[in-house]
């Protein structure tokens, strides 16, 4: 009995690999005019446009798995390609799809370099049982750090963070059973994912750094909820911290305006 098997090397090659690899910035792209867009739309059938929209949605979902911001240049180079003149129309439909189907929002966190992240558009649920999502321990750790930074005014010296962790028996100097290299987790992984910023404080020798909230944390985390959580811990009302309370309500008002 002869058995055929299609050679693996003939599987769809460069397209699928390139989709995932980061490439150089496409500096020559400028947004097309509305008449160019219209001409572009007329050349493609609506089925073809919808196909492109589906491909962009999938591209973004795959890229977002890594939690690293998605560059506009990558979307154009890998998916939209020769149809770049209808890029705005495709992205409009992509945004609508994310909101209407997934309850997600594409947020441009880097206006200069045109990079996006996918953010949850649904109301946050504080009751963990109701949300049914497996909470990874890293989430808890990040939440604690973000709380510390927020309660201390938005920026803290790294020493403060390390001490806080030590109190929780997470020693950045030692390899942690659950988190591994804790220092790397905070200064590398969380920073890459834009949850934290780790910046050098100028004129310090030996060099010191401070932690701030990253752009993704700003977009995703409700400061009001965070303050409520801290308040609960201390069995007080959120208003007991007037500065933080003001910051939280202003920040949340700003993000609901933007949506």
């Amino acid at each position: 009995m002869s058995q055929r098997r299609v050679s693996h090397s003939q599987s769809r090659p460069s397209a699928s690999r390139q989709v995932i690899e980061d490439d150089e910035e496409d500096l020559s792209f400028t947004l097309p005019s509305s008449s160019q867009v219209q001409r572009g739309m007329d050349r493609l059938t609506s089925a073809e446009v919808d196909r492109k929209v589906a491909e962009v949605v999938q591209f973004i979902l795959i890229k977002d798995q890594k939690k690293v911001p998605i560059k506009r240049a990558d979307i154009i180079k890998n998916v939209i390609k020769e149809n770049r003149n209808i890029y705005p129309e495709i992205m409009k439909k992509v945004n609508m799809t994310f909101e209407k189907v997934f309850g997600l929002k594409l947020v441009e966190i880097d206006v200069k370099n045109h990079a996006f992240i996918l953010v949850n558009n649904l109301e946050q649920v504080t009751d963990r049982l109701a949300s049914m999502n497996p909470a990874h321990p890293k989430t808890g750790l990040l939440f604690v750090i973000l709380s510390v930074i927020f309660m201390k005014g938005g920026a803290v010296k790294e020493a403060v963070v390390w001490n806080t962790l030590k109190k929780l028996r997470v020693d950045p100097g030692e390899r942690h059973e659950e988190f591994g290299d804790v220092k790397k987790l905070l200064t590398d992984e969380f920073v890459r994912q834009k949850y934290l910023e780790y910046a050098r404080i100028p004129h310090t020798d030996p060099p010191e750094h401070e932690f701030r909230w990253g752009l993704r944390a700003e977009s995703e985390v409700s400061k009001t909820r965070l303050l409520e959580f801290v308040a609960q811990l201390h069995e007080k009302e959120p208003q007991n911290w007037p500065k933080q309370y003001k910051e939280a309500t202003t920040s949340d008002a700003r993000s609901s305006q933007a949506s």
Partner: protein
Amino acid sequence: MAGSLSDCHRRFLQSLMCNGIIVRSKAIALHRNCCEVHNTHYTRDGLDEFIDLINSHLEPLFMQIRKSVSEEDGLQYYALVNMAETDITRMSSDYADNELELFRKTMDLIVDSESGRASSTDILNCADSLNTRKMKKKETELLLTRLVRDKWLNEKHGEYTLSTRCIMEMEQYIQKIYQDMVKTCAICHNVVFQSQMCDNMSCGIKMHIPCVAKYFKGRSDPQCPVCNAFWPHEIPEIRDTAQVPLEMENTAPTPSTSHSRRRR
């Protein structure tokens, strides 16, 4: 499209994407929870209709929530599947080229085997002859751990099998690459890897273990459904559907402070 989606549907979809794959009992609980959170009317047997509506919106995106029965425990599972893929691109963002090559070779071993299992020894031997870049023993072991953690493979007693998620997500890829080499179960007609096979050499049909349990239940004299030869294998007990479902771990452990944040 039947109707528009509400936040209730979206939350369900996000949770499903976050978990990668969920067992039916958990899907039912999730459905109820999502309805409660969003004050939506909940009907006890409404899960399939609920999912059908979501699917009507996923169809233009070449995605679907599919359900499938596990070869391991006979329970029904749900997963979000990409319908347009004929390659294992879903994994490309998480695994290096040589890791993907080894995964493909592991799949080859599983398909070639009668039992639907590949031993770690055989997989380690493959690692030694990769075209992309050879992998050492330690590297291979770490890779296999990741593949199990990410729910592409299951491991038991040093042998590896394809997970329900893997079979569901890569159905098209498997059919395209292996074609006739992959058999279908004589009872449920779905693709089969871990199986019992008819002893009759001119018959050789295969059946899923859970399908064997159901088909031969209560029969003292089991016979092959196709050729009537005596079925010599041990007939397993039907697994109680009321059992606690398998522990589901997050497939891609990345942090988020929003409790209902979608993760993959």
